[in-house]
């Protein structure tokens, strides 16, 4: 079931989320709201819990305490299958190191996300090709990850994240493994996506990326939210 989301509606709500890995506390009572159409950057020093926060929202991990509610669904209470379906329908995820499957061509990597939902191969490839054209990498559709540049790999990863038209796109250090030129291109891509209404949460160390892409900045330290700022769109 697809929930209709209007700009300004709350898409993500975190209430006192705590995450422990053994003795280590990665998140310590984080509360946060993200509204539809927003672009939120999460920043903080290494080990402050940025990626853990993203994993909680993506349903890749479960909170030890507190609630993560996305589109009215309490993510932590979903079954394993429920989480898989949640990720499939609601979330698009971009990783620092792309995480593409080496044995599949760029096009098949992207089409895969739709094929897992049962979309026939031909239809999935058609949709993937549309995305490749939108992202300017149509000429690289039959290439394999090993021969793509970092920027191209990340564009393929973004295309895969967009494949099932997710309500929420999450990016974990999306430019962290790219050179400055490729990083700029990916940034532009994210800005474009947000401008057409894509809700975006970006975890980054890169202040420049946060300034350019995000409308709000959430600062994290030692697993706690230490500050929130609205950002002026950069020129």
């Amino acid at each position, binding site marked *: 079931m697809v929930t209709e989301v209007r700009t300004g509606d709350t898409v993500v709500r975190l209430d006192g989320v705590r995450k422990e890995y053994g003795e280590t506390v990665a998140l310590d009572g984080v509360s946060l709201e993200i509204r539809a159409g927003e672009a939120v950057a999460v920043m903080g020093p290494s080990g402050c819990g940025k*990626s*853990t926060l993203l*994993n909680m929202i*993506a349903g*890749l*991990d479960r909170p030890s305490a507190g609630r993560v509610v996305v589109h009215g669904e309490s993510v932590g209470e979903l079954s*394993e*299958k429920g989480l*898989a*379906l949640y*990720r*499939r*329908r609601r979330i698009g*995820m971009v*990783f620092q*190191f792309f*995480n*593409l*499957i*080496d*044995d*599949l*061509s760029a096009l*098949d990597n992207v*089409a*895969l*996300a739709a*094929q*897992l*939902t*049962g979309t*026939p*191969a*031909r239809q999935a*490839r058609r949709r993937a090709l549309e995305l490749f054209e939108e992202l300017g990498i149509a000429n690289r559709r039959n290439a*394999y*990850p*090993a*021969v793509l540049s970092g920027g191209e790999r990340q564009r393929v990863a973004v295309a*895969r*994240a967009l494949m*099932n038209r997710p309500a929420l796109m999450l990016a974990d250090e999306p430019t962290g493994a790219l050179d400055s030129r490729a990083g700029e291109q990916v940034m532009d891509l994210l800005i474009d996506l947000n401008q057409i209404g894509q809700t975006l949460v970006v975890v980054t160390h890169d202040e420049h990326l946060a300034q350019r892409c995000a409308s709000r900045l959430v600062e994290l330290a030692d697993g706690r939210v230490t500050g929130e700022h609205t950002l002026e769109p950069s020129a």
Partner: protein
Amino acid sequence: MRAVWRAARAAVRRRRLQTLVIWLVTLVSTGSSVVALGLVDAASAPFDKAFGTLHGPHVVAAFDGGKVSDARLARAARQPGVEAVAGPFPQATVDIPRGTADYALGGTITVVGRSGPGGPVDRVDLWAGRWPARPGEVILNRQSDWTADDLGKKFRMPSGPVLTIVGFAFDLSHTADAWVTPEQMRSLHPTGRQLLLRFRDASSADALRAGLSEVTGGLPRDALTGSRTYLALKHRIGSNARAYAPYLMAFGVLGILVAVLIVANVVGGAVVSGFRHIGILKALGFTPGQVLGVYLMMISVPAVLGCALGTLAGNALAGPFFGFVFSGPASGVLHGSLGIAPWVNLLALFGMPLVCLLAALGPSVRAQRLPAARAISAGSAPRAGRALGIQRRLASVRLPRSVSLGAGLPFTRPARSALTLAAVVLGVTTVTFATGLATTLNSYGDGGHHTYDVTVYVGAYRHGEEVRPVHGDRALQSLLGGLPGAARVTARSDEEALLVGTTQPVMFEGRRGGRSLDTVLTRGRWMRRSGEVVAGAPFLRRNGVRLGDRLRLRKDDREEEVTVVGETLDTDDRLVVGGWATVTALMPRVKPIAYHVRLREGTDQEAYARAVRAADPGLSVQLSGSNSVTGTIIGSATGLTLMLALVASLGVFNTAVLNTHDRRRDLGMLKSIGMTPRQVTVMTVTSMAVLGALGSALGVPLGIAAYEMVIPRMAAGVDITLPSYMTDVWHAPVLSLSALAGVLISVVGALVPARRAARLTVAEVLRNE
């Protein structure tokens, strides 16, 4: 060296599952190799091994006690060519009169006075009760697969003494039918002395004759009343072993191949999956030699432990297993006398670790030469993909994506998949071969076996006394035919006759009434009129007789000519079967010894047996059970097949574990984009099921080929030709079952790693990558 040991110990600790798999695979593989090699060894010369273990006599010589004293015999046996001697023992030939129990001993028995079952020659297997300790006790020679239900019963000897059965023992060389204490022998008036001799040179009949001449040279000329060598016994027992040998060899070879393949796959895979670790060690300053040392040590610890325990387990398993394989009326002579040869244990203890070492050496040397940076990135940097064409084609196949993704996975690690496939192929070959073997043997066991359900013997024994039937022959046959449930009754007689032109007696079996027993015919037809007989292939071959040939049989002063019209599956080379009119023409006064009764469908055998006993107390009843020889082979084949299938499954398990370990990052990513746990399971199981299907496609023809090679040799071993309906086993259900085996082996092996992969925590996987 300390750094190498520490790094290896840390690696073993960190890779608990992998270490466990190596240990488990080497344990099971070594155990099955020990059993398989032991079988090959045992099957190659079972008689010699059993005979050697029991210190069987090369010559059993009987002397006239009136012509030579015990002391002189003992002195005569002290010759340089004599390796060991037992006796002289007092020996008597006793006719057991009708009316006393014969306990399957026959009418005339040989009784020997011996003080115990051991000694330097002819160690007797005492399997029930005890050896006679005082006069009045007797122990009977009986194979251990019979029951010991006659223990404690008494019977009277013609010379007066009443003997109580206190035990049962089995003597491979059959030096006596019964043993008593030497003191008891006096009352049996022994006229003979038995000397059991082992010679240094027992290689031929001539050598044995020369050895015996050396012993008897100084004795009175006619003191030796008879002698026999072990060579005739060896020939008789050898036929059973010849039947077993090809099938045991086939299983042995398959078992060893599977074990070596799996070990090579597991060990090689472990090194390949550790490339990243190797890179880190190099970056830390480990020399290539030290890296090699770490990996060889990491593999050796679980492998050596597995091999040592596997050897112990194989030996422990071999005892009861060999007892099971070499049991039954036809092969029981070998029971309990076979074990694992020392060379098998040595080979397992040193050969299997060597296989592990060699399997680890290839990839280790590769890793040793790999630059540190490349080794480190082996697990995380994008690879130039493999089998890309297959993946591309599969991506557009109309199958669920989890299935098509899984189907392409084996092609990304071709060497690992090839080794796993080879193990599955051998597993399927074994299953196919064993299925065909079991089908044929079932058919063989049922040949003639289901022709009757109950055998009623004339005469019964109560409290050691024989009870004769109240009814006469014809009346008995109609009585049995009239009891509730009886469909038809066939009377059977067994009498010896002489085949004219030879010195050899034949057992001429007569049959009256009932239907012909066509199921046991291999060629020709069943006899229809007087003067026609059928016989087994061994009889025909031994006497150079063909179907249609005429034979002359003599009994007392009568001679009759008979025509051989059919060849049966009977393995007795002395047996000829004829109709009642044919038999009575030669032996007019012959009487049936038994009646074979076929019951109507649904009739309770036990109820019929009770009715028989109630109708005439002079009858004893035996119900048809399963054929023990075929049962033994089928049972052992099933055990071996399950063992090899388990080893093959372990190979698949290991490959699935390594594959999921290698693809953790991919699995995490797939889950992050919405692959459900069920889809992960399906994908992983499919990746192995593909190998299973390929394994079936290759293994089924190989299994059929193994069957075609082994079965005729088994039949030739017992001198029979199997009819085509027994070897025509490759029908759709059997082939489907065999084809399913590969998929089943793979699915069973892949299921646990697949479930484990399905439960991976995505965040954890992606963080660690």
